[in-house]
């Protein structure tokens, strides 16, 4: 166990540096004239050019520049946007909202996904099972750029059940529809995974033993099957986080929620390189850390697995 944790941590450090390096290199590496890109179409005076070169360490070798960037990332200093706002300020403002939205989406997905998955897994081949299989396939295939505007159109504009946009200070009620849109894909995957693992575990030897002992069906399903079936579902949370982040960009944009996703969208639209890289770096770090936690949790939850 300890060896596994150490191994996983070392791997995480490697991935962390690799991934951030990749993001940095993709954004800034091999750029012909970053200062002109920074200024857009406006002309740049020589004095300004010299100052900017000094300020962004552009005269230094690429690896040294990456070092400066990493120092900033690790100390929470993400620099400034093109318009001069501190990126850490923007993040402090927008993170709580995105976390709230993501948590709502995850709770929604976990509760409904596992409940319906267990039900479908117990009654394989039934009407409910067949219907959910078809519906979840459809939901998984729906890109979020289809799902979000369509949900907005149907439940916001046509039916009027939910507010069409959440606005600057969204209420919990205003976040429900975006959270459902955001969590829909995770819900579908979770449902399918739970269903498959319940169906598989029902045939396991220990379930037969439990039945043979004369335990009530409720207990066999509720304790023996359920516990073992939910282990793989936990790993899904880590994997799904990436989808969730990508979804948040679109969902927040469509429903006008001022979270990290819509700030990233703003950065893309205004061609604000530093803002985009700052936000993406933090999202990547969050993704890596959550996946690490999920992996470690998995090792604790499933002692059968021996990690080499």
């Amino acid at each position, binding site marked *: 166990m300890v060896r596994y944790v150490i191994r996983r941590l070392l791997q995480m450090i490697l991935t962390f540096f690799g991934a951030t390096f*990749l993001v940095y290199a993709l*954004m800034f590496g091999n750029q012909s004239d970053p200062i002109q890109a920074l200024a857009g179409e406006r002309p740049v005076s020589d004095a300004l050019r010299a100052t900017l070169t000094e300020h962004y360490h552009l005269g230094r070798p690429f690896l040294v520049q990456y070092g400066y960037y990493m120092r900033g990332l690790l100390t929470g200093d993400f620099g400034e946007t093109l318009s001069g706002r501190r990126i850490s300020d923007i993040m402090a403002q927008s993170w709580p909202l995105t976390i709230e939205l993501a948590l709502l989406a995850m709770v929604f997905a976990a509760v409904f996904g596992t409940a319906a998955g267990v039900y479908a897994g117990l009654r394989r081949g039934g009407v409910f099972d067949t219907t959910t299989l078809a519906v979840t396939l*459809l939901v998984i*295939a729906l890109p979020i750029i289809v799902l979000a505007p369509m949900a907005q159109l149907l439940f916001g504009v046509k039916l009027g059940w939910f507010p069409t946009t959440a606005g600057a200070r969204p209420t919990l009620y205003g976040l429900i529809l975006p959270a459902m849109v955001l969590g829909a894909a995770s819900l579908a995957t979770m449902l399918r995974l739970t269903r498959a693992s319940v169906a598989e575990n029902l045939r396991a030897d220990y379930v037969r033993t439990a039945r043979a002992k004369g335990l009530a069906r409720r207990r066999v399903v509720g304790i023996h099957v359920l516990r073992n079936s939910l282990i793989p579902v936990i790993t899904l949370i880590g994997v799904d986080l990436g989808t969730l982040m990508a979804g948040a960009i*679109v969902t927040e944009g*469509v429903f006008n929620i001022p979270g990290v996703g819509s700030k990233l969208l703003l950065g893309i639209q205004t061609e604000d390189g530093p803002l985009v890289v700052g936000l993406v770096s933090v999202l990547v770090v969050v993704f890596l850390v959550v996946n690490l936690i999920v992996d470690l949790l998995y090792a604790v939850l499933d002692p059968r697995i021996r990690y080499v």
Partner: protein
Amino acid sequence: MSDLEMAAATEVPSHVGGGFRPTGPDESPDAGPTGGDRPRSLAGDAWRDLRRNWVFWVASALVVLVVTMAGAPQIFTSADPHDCTTRRQHAGPAGAAIFGYDYQGCDVFARTVHGARASVLVGVLAVLLAGAIGLVVGMLAGYYGRWLDAILSRIVDVVLGIPLLLAAIVLSKRLTADRQGSGVASVVIVLGILGWTTAARVMRSSVIAARGQDYVAAARMLGASHLRIMVRHILPNALAPFIVVLTIALGTFIATEATLSFLDIGLRPPAISWGTDIATAGKHVREAALPLVAPSVFLALTVLGFIMLGDAIRDAFDPKLR
């Protein structure tokens, strides 16, 4: 030489396909390309299963429809998708324009039909690129193992450590910085060099499974070179799961292209992209819903078609899942 090798290749243990006990040991997916006469090959079995699967037929119909739309949009509409005038802004369905007109006054149906080309083109090219990278990396890592496997697997880990869309955003911002052309090449490159990881992992694990088989040892004893063993003996037997992953990836790539275009960092005019049209129509959804619904439905059906096709093929090749 070749005959001897063929003999070695067809002497695969015939425990594949056929009866499936849930308690059985892991079967390696040996898709016999030659389809031996005596025992039916796994591919033959899979094809028999596929023909009876309605999901496969629905998915194939969708895929054929979209590919036809991409190849010959004139069959479906004679209207010019670039013929737009604001006089017809948000006008309702009229004549051949069965979905009405959008904010710019363009024929929504014509735009939707013509949008298939960019989606399919980007998807197919990106899958070819990602598949090529994944094939080489997975094959080398799986066949040679040891330090090469360690290095390549860590690289896969690093690329997988960045969610696809986030990396695509950063990369396509770079590639679209010098705006010229329709952006098809940039999006293909972005998706190709970021989306090969799953394919590489799948290839690696099936190569590892095939590497230890007797027919590989037999080929090696007959003096076949590494390259020949990889291409003639291991590849055909490791191909099925790889193709399944790529089919599903095609759907994902099309969705990602639409998302990038939706975010305004994907395709640009004159290319017609469903993603761009969805983004524009979404802003005016209160005035007219059809310009949003039409491309959304077509995009969803296209993605669904490829994912269902991949699912059906996988089910046919892997009876354990049933």
